[in-house]
């Protein structure tokens, strides 16, 4: 009613509302940046500035020191083994869930998420209970001189456990969304199972796959709790980068601790860029797929 009888006032109030909106928007954006700067950017800046406090020389001495290099190697090894294994598992699980109907499917989907909800410390303890000297397989392993916990295999296993969901979680919705019509067409046209997978499935899911792998790598590199339990903390042998950072800090070796932390941070930034890139490709793929 009022808008009909008093158009000028109405448009003015709409303008005012827009101005008010613009102000609110700016305030919100400002607040978001402030929170970001205060809680994320500032700590990162502090890490790097602490690392470089005594110059670039000390920084490089700290990250090239034998124990730090051993920790870097072990971290890369754990990532290099757990990520490909999870890639295979993730694809297989997503395939089962999205292409087949079977009993207990929803249970399987729920269980894939288990490592998200279980505390990493418990994940580590599970392996100690299984493979430790007092554990279920302890004596059998000990007789054969096989070491799992407090050695490299335990660290890889713990990393594997905490990173299980990443690839599968990324692929399941993607593959469910895509359905299986294209695969069925390929089969009807006489493609073998492997041909179908290579030429149809894989191209369809590759960016989801890359995204899952990137997330998986990030988590595998940074894992602390589970690895800490099975590590045994032997310097130069079973310390990963995150554990090494803690040790250096506890030894009053601040500059070295922050230097190694910066190294970890640099790796994380590379991962972040990869994530951003694969995410944009994935978004592109999704909008492209829908007419």
């Amino acid at each position: 009613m009022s808008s009909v009888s008093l158009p000028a006032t109405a448009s003015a109030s709409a303008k005012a509302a827009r101005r008010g909106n613009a102000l609110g928007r700016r305030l919100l954006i400002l607040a978001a940046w402030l929170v970001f700067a205060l809680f994320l950017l500032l700590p990162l800046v502090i890490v790097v500035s602490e690392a470089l406090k005594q110059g670039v020389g000390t920084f490089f001495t700290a990250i090239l020191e034998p124990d730090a290099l051993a920790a870097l190697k072990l971290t890369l090894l754990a990532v290099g083994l757990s990520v490909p294994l999870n890639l295979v598992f993730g694809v297989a699980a997503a395939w089962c869930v999205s292409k087949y109907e079977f009993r207990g499917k929803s249970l399987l989907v729920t269980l894939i998420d288990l490592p998200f909800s279980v505390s990493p410390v418990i994940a580590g303890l599970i392996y100690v209970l299984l493979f430790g000297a007092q554990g279920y397989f302890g004596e059998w392993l000990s007789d054969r001189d096989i070491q799992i916990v407090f050695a490299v295999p335990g660290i890889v296993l713990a990393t594997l456990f905490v990173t299980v969901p990443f690839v599968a979680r990324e692929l399941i919705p993607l593959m469910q969304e895509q359905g299986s019509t294209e695969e069925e067409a390929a089969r009807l046209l006489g493609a073998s199972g492997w041909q179908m997978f290579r030429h149809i499935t894989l191209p369809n899911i590759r960016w989801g796959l890359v995204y899952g792998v990137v997330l998986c790598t990030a988590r595998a590199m940074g894992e602390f709790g589970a690895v800490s339990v099975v590590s045994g903390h032997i310097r130069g042998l079973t310390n990963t980068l995150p554990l090494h950072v803690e040790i250096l800090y506890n030894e009053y070796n601040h500059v070295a601790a922050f230097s190694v932390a910066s190294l970890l941070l640099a790796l994380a930034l590379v991962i972040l860029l990869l994530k951003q890139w694969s995410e944009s490709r994935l978004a592109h793929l999704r909008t492209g797929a829908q007419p």
Partner: protein
Amino acid sequence: MFAKHLALATLAGALAVLTAGPASAAEPLLNVSYDPTRELYAEFNEAFNEHWQAQGHEPIEVRQSHGGSGKQARAVIDGLRADVVTLALAGDIDELHRIGKLIPADWQSRLPNASTPYTSTIVFLVRKGNPKGIEDWDDLVKPGVEVITPNPKTSGGARWNFLAAWAYARQKFGDEQQAQAFVEALYQNVPVLDTGARGSTVTFVNNGIGDVLLAWENEAFLALKEQGGDGFEIVAPSLSILAEPPVAVVDKNVERKGTREVAEAYLNYLYSEEGQRIAAKHFYRPRNERVAAEFKDRFPALKLVTIDGDFGGWTVAQPKFFNDGGVFDQIYQAH
């Protein structure tokens, strides 16, 4: 196609890392120790290596693992292949026999001084100028005083702290019930229980939490040294406890690895004058009288109770105070 390349690349990377590992001739020795000995063994290992090579042996790499004493004992029992353990108290090494069956029951009689090459005690570390005026154990139970000490379940130092407080209260009040009330009041003033002594030191020194840190004497001196001497001071209470951190060769592991000779030589070297001097340098009280005389200005004379004389040894004290349902559980559940 793409995923295949990715998989191949990661695999190649993993292989490169695997094969690039260090190739060492002699089996390295693993010393599983407690928190505050990091700096001590970093120096001792080098000295031992020189000594060992001077006797015509191949160089030996000594690897270190540090953490709360109870936690470390647990790891060795669970399969961490320590050749030697150098822990905070005999009770933790007893567990290697009791649960792990890794060493004989009489392990403590195999080396001099009940297998304890150096000793320490518990002192207070307070902030510069001692703003809360903390002089003795009585000051720790006052309201508004925050006390930092680790968890006696996982930390050896924390158990010595607990028993030192108990000994003081028992001497003052003359009965166990009042001692328990005193220690309970003390733990009510503890805002954080870290798992190891070093964690507590970091909480107090670096994170600035608390008014007084109950610390190993060596840990307190080290904190002073690392901070350049300003910011903190050490207060010696009227009564404390003789902390005896023992060492042992882990028989089952050295037999498997064939490292008994070097493991025994390693521990024996702790008793040599050189080993004792390194211990004293890192603020552990040496056993050797000549070395003790050299360093006597460094360590204040304190009235010290002992675990064997005043508590009936760890086999009595451990279950009574620290096992499940023990005194510590009773007072800690109470609040």
